[in-house]
């Protein structure tokens, strides 16, 4: 199997409290995004945060795992939608910690019944590298819903 390396970079000007940064996808040039500490704590439209980027990473990781499991079971998906919520909280004695990631998946899968879909979702959760990593330090939960045909 190939070893895959991905890079991103950020340039930050000034202090955390008053400064701001721009985070850029260095490997693919796919995005260049403004970020601030204020947008990390309170939701500010138009500025991202590390936790939002992790939510995007987890949703992306889970969707590829689920598609892979469904195809392996002989029922490739027609369409999947995955939503992820990452929660950061202040933990007594430990400062700010990422405490939870919740994944919610909906999919249109011709030929799959609720049981095979449920089994594929469980295998996707167990097989997604991001779920495996973050489970060591945070609560990882998922729900999966099979939708009717298109």
């Amino acid at each position, binding site marked *: 199997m190939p070893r895959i390396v991905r890079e991103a970079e950020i340039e930050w000007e000034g202090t955390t409290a008053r400064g701001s940064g721009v985070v850029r996808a260095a490997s693919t040039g796919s995005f260049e995004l403004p970020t601030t500490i204020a947008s990390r704590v309170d939701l500010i439209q138009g500025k991202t945060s590390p936790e939002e980027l992790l939510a995007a*990473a987890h949703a992306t990781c889970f969707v590829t795992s689920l*598609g892979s499991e469904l195809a392996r079971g002989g029922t490739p998906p027609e369409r999947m939608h995955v*939503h992820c*919520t990452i929660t950061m909280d202040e933990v007594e004695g430990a400062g700010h910690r990422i405490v939870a990631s919740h994944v919610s998946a909906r999919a249109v899968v011709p030929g799959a019944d609720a049981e095979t879909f449920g089994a594929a979702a469980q295998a996707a959760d167990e097989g997604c*590298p991001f779920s495996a990593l973050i489970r060591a330090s945070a609560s990882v939960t998922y729900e999966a819903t099979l939708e009717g045909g298109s």
Partner: protein
Amino acid sequence: MAESTASVTWKGSLLEGGGTIDHVGSGVFGDLPITWKARTGEEGGKTTPEELIAAAHASCYSMALSHALAQDGNAPDSLETSATVTFVPGAGITKIALSVKGSVPGIDQAAFVAAAEDAKANCPVSKALAAVHEITVEALLS
């Protein structure tokens, strides 16, 4: 407490299909295309979970380091951080290498390296990804 959200839609099979990260809570990006081929390095211009993790870690790390420096009375003029994530299909994410160049008035290289190591140990994304076998940091004062 802060909640962050993102949504992805995927159409078709893993190898032939593709998807988009179509919405994030802040609205700062959307419709970022994703494919399996991009993830395994056969296609450029599309992002991957590992690239997003690299972006998350570089962002978190920069905030933690600038905060620690400012608390010690040496607020940085600028920090330029890169994160390189290594993903081995089947084995998962095996390594994250952070690299930071700082313009920080009032401190020397040794103090900067100490602050850089401390930020690596304590930033919330490092803590969340503590199961990664190897996380390294290289710090250089410019």
